[in-house]
């Protein structure tokens, strides 16, 4: 019984999602912008020749932890309209 109530509570946590509604779009843009910054720094990992690669190495202590996951995120960005569709909440 307790479990059912907990599940119902969790349902409303997901459905209401006040944090998401208050910050979701901004968070997405922040995340995208940060990924773009990483691209400008470490694009050589994706095969892009950049003039500032040498200097970007210096930034690894601050960004290095996310580097592997960033690489994974960047692997499929040719067409992102569907990704955006999921996040934009069209609600028709």
């Amino acid at each position, binding site marked *: 019984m307790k479990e059912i109530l907990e599940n119902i509570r969790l349902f409303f946590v997901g459905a209401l999602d006040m944090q998401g509604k208050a910050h979701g779009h901004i968070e997405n843009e922040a995340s995208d912008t940060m990924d773009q910054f990483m691209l400008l720094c470490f694009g050589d990992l994706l095969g892009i020749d950049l003039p500032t690669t*040498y200097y970007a*190495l210096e930034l690894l*202590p601050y960004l290095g932890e996310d580097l592997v996951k960033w690489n994974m995120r960047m692997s499929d960005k040719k067409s992102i309209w569907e990704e955006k569709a999921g996040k934009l909440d069209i609600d028709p």
Partner: protein
Amino acid sequence: MGKIIFFGGKGGVGKTSCSTAFALSKARSGLKTLLVSTDPAHSISDLFHCQIEHKITQLEANLFGVEVNPERESNAYITKIRKNLHSIMSPIIMEELNKQLDAASVSPGTHESALFDKMIEIIIDTSKDFDYIVFDTAPTGHTLRLLSLPEMLGAWMDSLIAKRKKTLTFKSMLSKDKGIKDPIIEILSKRRNNLTLARKIMIDGENLQFIFVLNAEKMPIEETKKAVKMLRSYGIKVTSLVVNKILPNENSDDFWKDKKVKETRYLKIIEEEIPVDNLYQIPLFKFDMDEYTINEMAEYF
């Protein structure tokens, strides 16, 4: 503010000896001169019987020398980063990052960047202390473009900084922390400022000069012509040419007589097609470069 001289020219034309001789002559005429060598063969150390290292070493009254080893520089840079990372990152992450760092340390772009970096550092640190800073080599390939277009590298740094600032703006919308100093922007800005300063010293102050060394032959002339044209189109001064290894006037056999005629013709072409303030003609010396011949060569400057 000191004059910054880059010696350019293909391999084997004698950049190292010419630049050394040039530096020597300036030093002997009373001007405090720093000779910067990127020659991996350490020939300058041999010439002066001195262990010139990466610290500025006094060679003569007004002559100082320093060696720049791009591999040493980039390794030091990367090792420092590696150590730094190791102290704050889990070895699981380090495994991936080490791959990235290893790849960087053997990449040609890295050596170029390290060399460029060291040059900038020397210029910024010492240009006030010396009348002449002589580099025995010009930065190669795209670094030459970077040197002549510091705007490009600066623009890239600017775009990195702008992107980072945008991220911070978004983050500040999401939480209460505002105006926390961002180490990344600090690092990037410091680099950016260095570039701006170097640019100022080199280009705005009109202190930068190129001296091309070439031989009186067809290919070197064509290449030098192209290089000079390109540099001048970026507003960089090419003040002098050094035609090296000029054949002696008296030649016994026909083979050398023919070559001398050709050489004279080429010299004339050089004079006409690549106008410069100073055209030095350095003879081909009988003996190998040592401390005596270098003194002789210095007389020509």
